[in-house]
């Protein structure tokens, strides 16, 4: 029974994993990855770690991958660019290295006599909580600090660049031009207003390099 389930979920995991790599469309990769996560969660349940399974689903499938899909949609990337691949040699290299890795693991697995204890029932949330808040409190706190740093870093990174804040407002009397006049690449819905006297200065203020500004 368990064996069947194992085979089912393991197969599902491997299949989805292969799909992650094989798919050209990042969104499909993401969906396949969610599949991997869920099947792994089921395996965790089989391994008597329901808590970890639930957290796996919530954190990975529910949060991280949602973010990834969100970003994919935001950037709206279609097929992977088919530009010339300057590193073709990497594909065979990767395959060879992967083969070596598998070989080594197989060697280890077969050469080691594996002890076969029974699956125990230690994955209860209570036991994990106890350990986490008594003996391994320090790592727990450290991870919280790590998360804080991640939040700050992400906000810093994702803030829109340029010398002006998004709250830049139009000063009455200043000339108002569409930004596309200054920056051809600008998104048409970028409505930030800058007070300047010349398009060049506007470009400077917006942090756009002047190379692609119309020279007229």
């Amino acid at each position, binding site marked *: 029974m368990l064996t069947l389930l194992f085979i089912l979920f393991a197969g599902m995991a491997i299949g989805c994993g292969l799909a992650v790599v094989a798919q050209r469309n990042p969104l499909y990769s993401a969906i396949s990855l969610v599949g991997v996560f869920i099947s792994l969660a089921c395996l965790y349940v089989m391994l008597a770690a329901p808590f970890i399974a639930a957290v796996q689903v919530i954190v990975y499938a529910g949060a991280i991958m949602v973010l990834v899909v969100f970003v994919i949609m935001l950037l709206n990337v279609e097929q992977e660019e088919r530009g010339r691949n300057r*590193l073709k040699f990497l594909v065979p*290299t990767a395959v060879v290295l992967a083969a070596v*890795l598998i070989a*080594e693991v197989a060697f280890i697995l077969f050469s*080691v*006599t594996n002890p076969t204890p029974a699956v125990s029932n230690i994955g209860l949330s209570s036991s994990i909580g106890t350990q986490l808040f008594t003996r391994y409190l320090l790592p727990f706190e450290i991870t919280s600090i790590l998360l804080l740093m991640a939040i700050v870093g992400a906000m810093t990174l994702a803030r829109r660049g340029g010398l002006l804040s998004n709250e830049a407002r139009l000063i009455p009397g200043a000339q108002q031009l569409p930004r596309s006049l200054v920056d051809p690449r600008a998104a048409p819905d970028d409505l930030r207003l800058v007070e300047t006297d010349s398009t060049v200065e506007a470009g400077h203020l917006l942090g756009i390099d002047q190379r692609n500004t119309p020279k007229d």
Partner: protein
Amino acid sequence: MENNLLSLIIFAPLAGAAINWFVGRRVRDERFVGVVACGAVAISTLVAFYLAFKPDGALHSEAPLLDHIWTWLQVGTFHADFALAMDRLSGTYALFVTFVGLLIHVFAVGYMHGEQGFYRFFAFLNLFMFAMLTLVLADNFVLMFVGWEGVGLCSYLLIGYYFDRKEAGDAAKKAFITNRIGDWGFVLGIMLTFFVTGSVSFFANPAAGEVTHTALSFFQTRPVEPFTAGAIIAGGATSIAVLLFIGAAGKSAQIPLYVWLPDAMAGPTPVSALIHAATMVTAGVYMIVRCSEIFVHAPTAMFIVAVIGAATALFAATIGLAQNDIKKVLAYSTISQLGYMFLACGVGAFIAAIFHVITHAFFKALLFLGSGSVIHGMHHEQDMRRMGGLRKYMPITFATMAIGWLAISGVPIFAGFFSKDEILWRTWSAPAFGLPSTTFSKLLWAIGAITAFLTAVYMTRMMVMTFWGQERFRDAQAHKQQEPDEHHGPVEPHESPWLMTVPLIVLAVLSTVGGFIGVPYALSSAFTNRNINVLEHTLEPVVATVPPGIHAAEPTSLPGEGAHAPENAPAPVPEPVAHEHSSEEVTAERMLAGVSVLIGLLGIGVGWYLFKNRPLLQMPRLLENKYYVDEIYDAALIRPIESGSREGLWKIFDVGVIDGLLHSIGEAVTEAGRLARYLQAGFVRGYAAIILLGALILIGLFAYLGFQNITPP
């Protein structure tokens, strides 16, 4: 006895220096700066006098006043505190240092009037006082060395005070470097002292957990080392003494390290008076007297000290005979007087040396300040050939300087007479360093006498050229026009302000009566039966006496030279001064005193006769050029070192070896980088592949190693 007032003595000038340096430079008000500087020194003067003369003060009690400020160095058994100690010797020294220093500060306020770097000058001067007092009051060699270096630094700064003049800068560097040579000896001496005695402290200071046997008390129980040349390198007391003497020679301008002192006159005159006449240059004497316990156990070193001292005295006196710069004359006279002091130390008359240090501080400071007053009046004219007849222009200066002149020439009742006579007599009756006969000490006495004669002569020459004769400064205008520091056309000499004359008068009084603190019994007994030699009473307990063993060769001089350092008394506890003075030696001493008086008067007479009418009398070239010593040093030492550094060290070693090495390293790194660049192409995927490769290698390694000791199923 602990007494924390002691630290006030040294820290008051330090505070003054700090205030002048940080605040005075902003205020730029001469009144403020002057008050701060003089006030600081005045404070330490008052404290010093209080501590010295209070009922259980330093000059009355056996045990020194101690002030353990903080534990400074504590390495294993090596223990040096930042601690002050004021015993009878250092107390006496601190007294005249602070007092003369105060007078000179006051003088300088007038002398330096209108100078650009007024605040700077007084900051340095206060700093010097701090360093000098640290040197004097230090209770161990290391702290003393700190003060030693401090005074060296301040002397450097103050000699180079007019740093826009080249000769000042050169003189400053010369002084500094020459002192380095001396300090080298001093440091080695300190180290050797520690290795031999296991301590660097002068006084046992249980309060600071100090070992009870100190660097000095260590030797009391030791036998006297033999009088051989080998003892110098034997690493015992003699070696220590010789090394310390090298330091003293550097600081106190003895042969062969005296060359910096004459050039040091490039500094302002108060500096010359304070540092290069009264206080700093006598630090060497102080150090030797402080270590007298060591020296009396090292007859060889004593011998060297005496010889060097005598030679310096004569040598410098001859040079002084021919100088035309008023300050140069005084400088060489200082050197020769220092030679006197070392001569005294050499023959074991440490008290006499201190005595001469004090009186010399008085009259030499007086003379220097007088010359400063003259220079001030002459608008910075120092050449005596362009003076003359100043008598009626600056009467106070003339009168006071005349007193100084008589004092240094050894005319009775003036201070110089007693101390110089004391030294001469002690030299005459000195033990003979194990030489077969006492002829040698007689020889030293002869040198001393000649020096005294020469001293009188050249001092007379100076006075005559400056104050008598027709007034040469007007016709000197012709070639004084192109000098830059000339303020206005014809110089009209004028008397100096009271700020300058008051110190002169005070010093004049002191150089007159200052000698009475040490009137030898032989002379005083003519009037009273009480021994009134105060200085000797004071210093006897702290100054070591020559053990009898040294001059066993010459028993005749054994019957104690009475009042002067009972030589056959056990070292620590001096005999009470009550022992009898055998009549014949009293008469001998009186006779010698008469002789020295005659010598002095004769010198004055000769000088008067020679120069009264021919002040510009041409002196022997050899003397005028100071025996070409500077040139000899230049050719023998400086040139070779310079050329060696330039040609050898710089062009070959530095450029060739070091730079070559560095360049080759840099190129190697560049080459390596050029190769490694291919790995860092910036392609993340490439990095990932390389990481995986490394991981695989590691895994394979572990798998292999693990397989060694795992039996496959």
